[in-house]
């Protein structure tokens, strides 16, 4: 890959827009996990999540997770666009939310939380 050693011509952009995308992705992953768990734990909710019958509750879980992710991204971007933020806390929160997403999509964890 060719490289550039000289001064950059890019404008230094504030990190707010990136921070919004990062935290929103974490929120989306956590929403995916939470909806997976709730749909599995509560039969009534499982029925409500059946948005598209051939795909079953998976259609509702994933559609709602995407809606939550995009809504969070839109709102956070509006709030943080053009600002420079301390990224450490946002990064930690994003990774924690990502970990929650992974954990709650892992069947042994959801079974454990339901006492199965």
């Amino acid at each position, binding site marked *: *890959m*060719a*490289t*550039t*050693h000289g*001064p*950059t011509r*890019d*404008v*230094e*952009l504030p*990190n707010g*827009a*990136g*921070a919004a*995308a*990062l935290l*929103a*992705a974490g929120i*989306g*992953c956590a929403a*995916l*996990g939470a909806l*997976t768990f709730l749909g599995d734990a509560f039969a009534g909710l499982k029925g409500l999540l059946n948005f*598209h019958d*051939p*795909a*079953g509750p*998976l*259609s509702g*879980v*994933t559609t709602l*997770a*995407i809606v939550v*992710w995009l809504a969070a991204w839109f709102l956070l971007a509006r709030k943080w666009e053009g600002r420079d933020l301390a*990224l*450490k806390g946002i*990064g930690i929160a*994003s*990774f924690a939310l*990502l970990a929650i*997403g*992974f954990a709650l*999509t*892992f*069947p*042994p964890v959801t079974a454990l939380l339901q006492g199965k």
Partner: protein
Amino acid sequence: MEMSTRELWTVLHGMGFGALFLLAFTGAMVALVRMSGNGSPGVPDHGDRTMLRVFLIGMALLAWATVLSGTYIVYPWYRAAPPAGTIDLADYPRYLLLSRATTSEWHHFGMEWKEHVAWIAPIAMTMVAYLYAKYGRGLARHRGLRAAALAFLLAAFLSSAVAGAFGAFLNKYAPVRGGVAIPLMKGA
């Protein structure tokens, strides 16, 4: 030699979109890792930046194509319920797996995990592609964002790898079959 429409879609979902995404991972990881800091030898020039931007957006599109084709095309064939009285469950993979104690966990553990965790990939990959499209080589100066991009890229890879591995196993024990036959080659 022939293939059914369902088999073709399953191959396209797993070996087309999914495997291509997994193959692209190392390229993206290396490119982002090389952006180690402002003015470092790893900061790409304009042509490379454009190529990396297209590459990452392409990866995000592959991740979306994988989960959408999986959830809305292949998965309905997997979970279709057999008519009452059906004895041969070969065309009903979910029920075929659940019919035996030796294979039921492939559904309860494998499919249940795969179908959900896979959706982390497009979310994470879209964020990574957005960060690079937005900041370009400026990402090298935003170290926190660059580290986050790397971590989410890894998360996208891991979730896809889990889904891909279980997809391969599930297709071995209970393949999605049926549909219209597509002749590929005539025998001698």
